């Protein structure tokens, strides 16, 4: 299988891997998996006000999945928080030049981000309420 330079570079030199220190403010975590596709991902997003300050992740899966997680972590940084739920997996697949069979795996990443958004939304509501 051929991998695009984008995938190779992100695979071999991943950025933003790991977790934030416990107690970091504005932190939301989303996790998703698909056992039949052998992928699992956990994403942590730090939101300050309405802006994503930084992202961390852990991932188990194929090179495209690893690269995708790194790409998303970089892409979200500095963006409005609602971009979390607006990930365009088709665009991402194009950027990574991933084969169409990989789409299912990339959707798991979308799920994790949706989970982050949900957590963020809940906590934002809670803050409003308090």
């Amino acid at each position, binding site marked *: 299988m051929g991998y695009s330079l984008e995938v190779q570079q992100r695979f071999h030199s991943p950025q933003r891997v790991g977790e934030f220190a416990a107690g970091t403010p504005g932190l939301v975590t989303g996790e998703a998996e698909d056992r*039949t596709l052998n992928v699992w991902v956990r994403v942590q997003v730090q939101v300050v006000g309405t802006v994503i300050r930084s992202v961390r992740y852990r991932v*188990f*899966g*194929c090179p495209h999945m690893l690269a995708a997680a790194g790409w998303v972590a970089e892409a979200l940084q500095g963006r409005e928080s609602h971009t979390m739920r607006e990930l365009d997996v088709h665009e991402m697949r194009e950027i990574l030049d991933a084969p169409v069979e990989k789409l299912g795996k990339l959707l798991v990443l979308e799920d994790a981000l949706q989970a982050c958004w949900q957590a963020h939304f809940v906590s934002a509501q809670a803050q409003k309420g308090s």
Partner: protein
Amino acid sequence: MTKRTIYLDYAATTPVDPAVAAAMRECLEPDGNFANPSSSHSAGQRALGRVEEARAQIAARVSAPADTIWFTSGATESDNLAIQGAMLAHRDQGRHLITSRTEHKAVLDTAAAMEKQGFEVTYLVCDSDGLIAPEQVAAAIKDDTTLVSIMHVNNETGVVQDITAIGECCRSRAVLLHVDAAQSIGKVPVPLDQWAADLVALTAHKVYGPKGIGALYVRPGTKLAPLMYGGAQERGVRPGTLATHQIVGMGQAYELADTDREAPVLAAMRDRLWAGLSAIDGVRLNGHPTQRSPHVLNLVFPGVDGESLRLGIAEIAVSAGAACNATAPEASHVLSALGLSDTLAGSSQRFSVGRFTEPAEIDYTIERVTAEVARLRELAGGAPAWCTN
């Protein structure tokens, strides 16, 4: 370490041995042995002489008479000719075929095609070491069983089946036995004078011969329907102009493949690799620990996606399992049959060593695999338990 690829995928295919290439080159030269071996003129007869010499070389390597070796385009065709050919030729006597779940696709897909044509197929299930007990074969034989097809050396795990005992079960019930021995030559002896096998598939490109040429051993008197028609070559069972250079290459490759001399060297390389990699946390061997070919080491690295490991060590050519499944996303049917989960099957790697493998390559591989497994596990820190089960 040099930049060039380290090749540990000898079970997928081998480079051509320089001595084989030299023998082939003679047929590829303008004044070389290029004529059609079926032509009656002297140039054709000289080419035929080379073909027959190669047939004898191959026959000698498997302890069989020369006239039992029929040339094909490879083991895939040999498996098809054996199974389709025997089942169709005996369709009026019996319509039952026995094979196993860990066979190569050339056997399994052919068996499935026979099922579609109304034949009945029993798929034996190996134990967790990958072995089929001869008693399983005996128990599966029915009155209308025509053929048993069991491979010798498994291409993914290297596990070796007990063909001698399986052959006795078949012989005592007057059932034909086909053996896929594509992986065996030069690694594990193929003593056809001791096996009760009626059909045996052979190929050149797993043993430093060219790709695109193989053979089927056919015990005299075994009835086979041809897959193709046209021309009297190979007694009409396999028509088509004989590819002299390919056949000469296969002959030379078989002549060179001295199991007694090579198998211990391969085993030493494989054991060196296993000694180094067994230090990795949780690593396990797939397949029987001793009843195995010296050239294959199939390992599972729990918690490490196989595709990612392969990209991580991209300068080392290894494969998940069968090369012909490389683009298929499903888990290896062989490892599943051994009882591995899809996840663990997906975390498995086949390393296969060969004639040109050097100790330094093994050592470099150990170093690189160890480092990359650690890196990928770190990346997946905190992953749930199913990722490693």
